[in-house]
């Protein structure tokens, strides 16, 4: 079996070979990793990696799986599935060219209205999450084509709160990039 996994910025290909009921060997580049394991619960695996035991705690959350080992979280995605999905499905990833909150939040102030001309970096909307206010700014100069939310709305990362027609003619809304 083969897995292509994305951790942080890297994509690594793992060749996986079963070595018994509770053992596998992973190889990537020139590394060989012997893994014995026990399934402790739906969220915990006990692994013995090249002879050294450790506990891995996992949760699937949307596209990515978070794995915590020795207190440190690793975010891991299946690169193949991830590509398939993000190609078809816009907005799951926060795209820096959009006016979108960095975390789940509530809209507290809207500083522009449709038709306003805004400069690159100008504050357009303020959201609050867990008592911390964050000001979202225009990713480029242009004119405000639409304000998609109202004060008090709950908003999620990836959701476009304000559409801006860029001075160079490209709508921020239409801009997209595969990851």
């Amino acid at each position, binding site marked *: 079996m083969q897995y292509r996994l994305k951790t942080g910025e890297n994509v690594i290909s793992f060749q996986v070979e079963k070595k018994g009921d509770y053992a596998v060997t992973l190889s990537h580049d020139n590394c060989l990793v012997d893994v014995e394991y026990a399934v402790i619960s739906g969220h915990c695996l006990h692994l013995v990696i090249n002879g050294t035991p450790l506990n891995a705690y*996992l949760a699937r959350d949307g596209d990515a799986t978070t794995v915590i080992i020795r207190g*440190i979280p690793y975010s891991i995605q299946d690169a193949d599935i991830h590509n398939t999905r993000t190609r078809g499905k816009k907005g799951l990833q926060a795209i820096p060219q959009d006016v979108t909150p960095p975390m789940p939040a509530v809209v507290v102030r809207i500083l522009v209205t449709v038709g306003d001309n805004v400069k690159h970096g100008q504050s357009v909307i303020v959201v609050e999450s867990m008592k911390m206010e964050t000001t979202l700014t225009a990713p480029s100069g242009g004119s405000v084509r639409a304000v998609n939310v109202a004060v008090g709305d709950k908003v999620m990362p990836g959701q476009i709160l304000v559409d801006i027609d860029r001075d160079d003619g490209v709508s921020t809304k239409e801009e997209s990039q595969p990851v």
Partner: protein
Amino acid sequence: MANRGEIALRVMSTCREMGIATVAVYSEADRKAAHVLKADQAVFLGDPEPAESYLNIDKVISAAKQTGAEAIHPGYGFLAENPLFAERCEQEGLAFIGPPSDVIRKLGDKTVARRTVAGSGVPVIPGMNRPESDPGILAQEAANIGYPVLIKAAAGGGGKGMRIVTSPKDFDEACVSASSEAQRAFSDGAIYLEKYLARPRHVEFQIVADIHGHVVHLFERECSIQRRHQKIIEETPSPIMTPELRERMGSAAVAVAKASGYVNAGTVEFLVDQEGKFYFLEVNTRLQVEHPITEMITGLDIVRIQLEVASGNPLPFTQENVRSRGHAIECRIYAEDPEKGFYPSPGKIIYMQAPTGPGIRNDCGIYSGFQVPVEYDPILSKLIAYAEDRDQAISRMIQALKDYVILGVRTPVPFLIDVLKSEAFARGDTFTDFIDTHFAGWKPSRRDADAACAAFIIDEMSRVRKAGAPAGQVGADPTPWQTLGPWGR
């Protein structure tokens, strides 16, 4: 209990032990919150927004009236330091578990507090004792104090309306922006100036006072490790404390309490400069987030003292028979991402596993499956480690943090581990600029990426292997549907 989260649970624990029935209040977002599950009764307040629920004085008072509550504990945050709320409780014949409303009012205005304290002979940071709006007068005061100066809001804390100004050319603009921020945050744009102290330590004293005029301090807490002016690690004793300095600062804290007519539990905050000189900063007129470390070293239950004092009883000890033992550290476990500027990280707790064992206390407001609301403070829990001395307490805390698993939201756990492991922390070089100095742009060292990938793959393989099975959270226990077969009904 006019609060939510870990502090509501902590207060209710002591109430239950004392045989006091508890009433929780909750918003729409907290229907399944842990504090609702623990209370003897629970009253629904309204929509999630704080103004419609936990900050709504009328609704909270009405919940107390309708359940026949005799007293209200405000916790910290929300209405805890709101003099109008305390006053309203007084008017309605409800015991407010905290100081009298006029004390809260007096100490809540930072300039009034400075005047009160200055009168008692306790050193205050050089600066103004009255708010000012005239730009010319402010500029003159800044020149008198000497740059750098700190612009502060008279009405509040938490870093809102605060500006450090290093040169006269930036001064006017900073005053305008500080005042408007203060206006938005506290509905009061009043500002004043203080001398800016470089690299101070934040050292506070827990005090308790009864209505009979007895005031006792329960030693200090060092709270210098902060991000965005919010504490993240606290410890006691302070690494810089000497018996002589403790004696002087403790006496100053008691003097502040006496000067303000303080009753109940409170905290007198000081800044300590590089030369070891200390200055009064402010009084927090409530139970403090970090009160557990004081409980660990003194063996006392501060909430119990609050309740006893509120019912008119005298303090059951004098300054002489309160003794400190060992060392305690608290780490605040927030829903936030330490790799992204400590941005909030609300969401559902998919799985959690808290450390237990010798010297470990976990004051926790969440559980596996709980949806952490976006509307409130990001504090999830507080992990406290006690040991015989500071080094042992640090080691114990590091191990406990490594055992603390929270899946579903990000937490500062990996960051806290690295801070506690750092030489600067071990040396006790804990100044308020600690994080900026030693941990700017911090990322964890991810040495176990291969193991994490192995876990991902094995988890997926286990799921695929069981995909033919009729049902069930794969890899978890078999469900009743797997083990029981269809029902007869």
